[in-house]
C-alpha cells in the first residue's frame, strides 16, 4: 500500500467538472483505491475555502461528508509548523505557498514521496506528482 499525500489542487479538480484536468484527476483517484491517502489540516482549510467560494456550500458539504472521510488528515504539530514557517521564510519571494511548505514538511516527516497534485510548485521539490504534469 503506497502512501500518497493529497493536495488542494487535486481535491478541487476532483469536484469541479469544469476543470480541464478533471477526468485525469478522477481516473488517478480511482486508481488509488488500494493506497493510503493522506493530507493535513492546512490543505483541508484551503480546500474548504476554495470550494465554498467557487463551488458553493453543497460542494463544501460533499468535501466534508463524502471526500475527506476517504483521506486521513494528519496532525501538524508545533515542530512541523515551525519547520514549515522556516522553509517558507527561506524560500521567499518564490511563489511556493505556505500550505505547500507544510505539505513538504509533512511528506518529509512521513516518508511520503508521491503527491496527488496539479501544482507544479510541489513537483519542483523532488516529490513525484500524480497525475504527471502535462
Amino acid at each position, binding site marked *: 500500500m503506497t502512501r500518497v499525500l493529497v493536495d488542494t489542487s487535486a481535491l478541487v479538480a476532483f469536484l469541479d467538472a469544469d476543470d480541464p484536468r478533471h477526468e485525469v484527476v478522477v481516473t488517478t483517484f480511482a486508481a488509488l483505491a488500494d493506497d493510503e491517502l493522506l493530507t493535513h489540516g492546512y490543505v483541508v482549510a*484551503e480546500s474548504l475555502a*476554495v470550494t465554498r467560494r467557487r463551488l458553493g456550500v453543497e460542494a463544501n458539504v460533499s468535501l466534508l461528508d463524502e471526500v475527506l472521510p476517504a483521506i486521513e488528515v494528519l496532525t501538524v504539530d508545533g515542530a512541523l509548523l515551525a519547520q514549515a514557517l522556516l522553509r517558507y521564510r527561506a524560500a521567499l519571494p518564490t511563489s511556493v505557498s505556505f500550505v505547500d511548505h507544510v505539505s513538504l514538511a509533512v511528506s518529509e516527516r512521513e516518508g511520503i514521496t508521491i503527491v496527488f497534485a496539479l501544482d507544479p510548485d510541489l513537483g519542483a521539490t523532488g516529490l513525484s506528482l500524480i497525475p504527471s504534469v502535462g
Partner: protein
Amino acid sequence: MIRTQISLTEDQMRRLRAEAHRRRVPIAAVVREAVERLVPEESDVRRVRFQRALGAAGRYHSGTGDLSSRHDEIAGEGGW
C-alpha cells in the same frame, strides 16, 4: 470457527432468540451478522468510503475551470 462464551441479559437473549426464530437461522448466525455490522473489516470500511468519495467527482461546476491552477489566490479572496 472459534467457539466462545459470552454473557447476555435475559432481555438480550430473548431478542436474539426471537430474531433467530424469525429468520429461521441459528442464534450464532445472528450474532455473527451483528458482529459484521458493528465491527466491519477495515478494508470494507475503506472501500465504502472510497466509493462514496468517487460519487462526488464532478458534481460541481465552477464555470471557470481555474480552481486547481489558482487555488492559492482563490483561497486568499475574502475571509476564511
